[in-house]
């Protein structure tokens, strides 16, 4: 009986812990949109973000060879070919970690969302924001390279 109980408890925690190491990296780009023609971006600050994620996204886009600015939706440069919107979600597990990062590219005239990327990482698979921004943007642009 004790052995069965021990086995049940161990099985329970093994099943529980697999949920703590769950990752998803997804992107979805409109095949009718040629991303290679989009060179300038403006990253809109997410109102609930107090960690400066928009600065990290703009910096990464600049490192990738694009022209990226960041700030509010009120100071979008006229030359911006895409508006970048993002949302981040954080959780606490001993320390705070970024659970999910969503990045969308939108047409500045119609607000149409032509590309989206998402990284979801639970506690045991956590990465820092710079790494998550990196993987989401690479995943979005990778889709177009495959065409």
């Amino acid at each position: 009986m004790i052995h069965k109980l021990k086995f049940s408890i161990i099985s329970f925690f093994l099943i529980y812990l697999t949920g703590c190491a769950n990752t998803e990296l997804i992107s979805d780009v409109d095949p009718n949109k040629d991303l290679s023609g989009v060179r300038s971006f403006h990253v809109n600050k997410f109102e609930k973000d107090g960690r400066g994620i928009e600065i990290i996204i703009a910096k990464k886009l600049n490192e990738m060879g694009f022209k990226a600015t960041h700030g509010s939706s009120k100071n979008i440069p006229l030359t911006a070919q895409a508006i970048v919107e993002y949302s981040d979600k954080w959780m606490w597990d001993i320390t705070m970690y970024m659970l999910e990062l969503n990045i969308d590219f939108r047409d500045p005239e119609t607000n149409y969302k032509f590309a989206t990327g998402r990284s979801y990482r639970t506690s045991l698979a956590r990465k820092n924001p710079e790494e998550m921004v990196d993987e989401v943007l690479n995943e979005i642009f990778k889709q177009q390279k495959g065409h």
Partner: protein
Amino acid sequence: MKSIKSLILFFSISIITGCAAGNKYDYNQADISLPVKGSGDISLGVIDNRDYVHSGKKPAKFVGLQRGGFGNPFDVTTRSGKSLTEDMSVALTRSLEKSGFNVDELYFSASDTSLITSVIKNNGQQKNIVLTVNEWKTDVMMSIAVIYDLLLQIKDKDGNELASASSSSDGKETVSGAGFEGQNSRVATSTFETKISRLFNNPEIIEALEK
């Protein structure tokens, strides 16, 4: 020993059902940004062509599955209590109006072409948008997957097709990791916004709507 057994039974039931039962999603709150600008009058009809709804196996407000700890499925329905296609129609009407159109909502009881043509002719609009939902369903456990098969048509006042675009998943398409009901609803709604707006970003559709 008895109290330990009761505790284990309680936790087992909690794990099996989790927060899986009774979930509801808010599709009528979808904020779809369409890649078209237009003006004038237009009609819109959204048809539910899901075979399990027609057969009565699932109600029209069924939108997907939320699985418990052992993969056991529970139905997810619309928060509004209305059919999925009614919620989609409300959201799409709002988006078309934001894009500059005056929208007349039409109701088709079936996907029968002659019925659709008859309704369109009676309504008398020059341009008519018909969205047929052959499948739309989320499946949520550790991640959120969506299975969909959508057909968008623009028809003239006689019910003749001017343009069409379709989109379907190859089996289950994973769109995110899963969270609680509110977050899952937002992801499902966001996925719907993306897929629908993508259908409109077709050169023939845009031309048929904007001319």
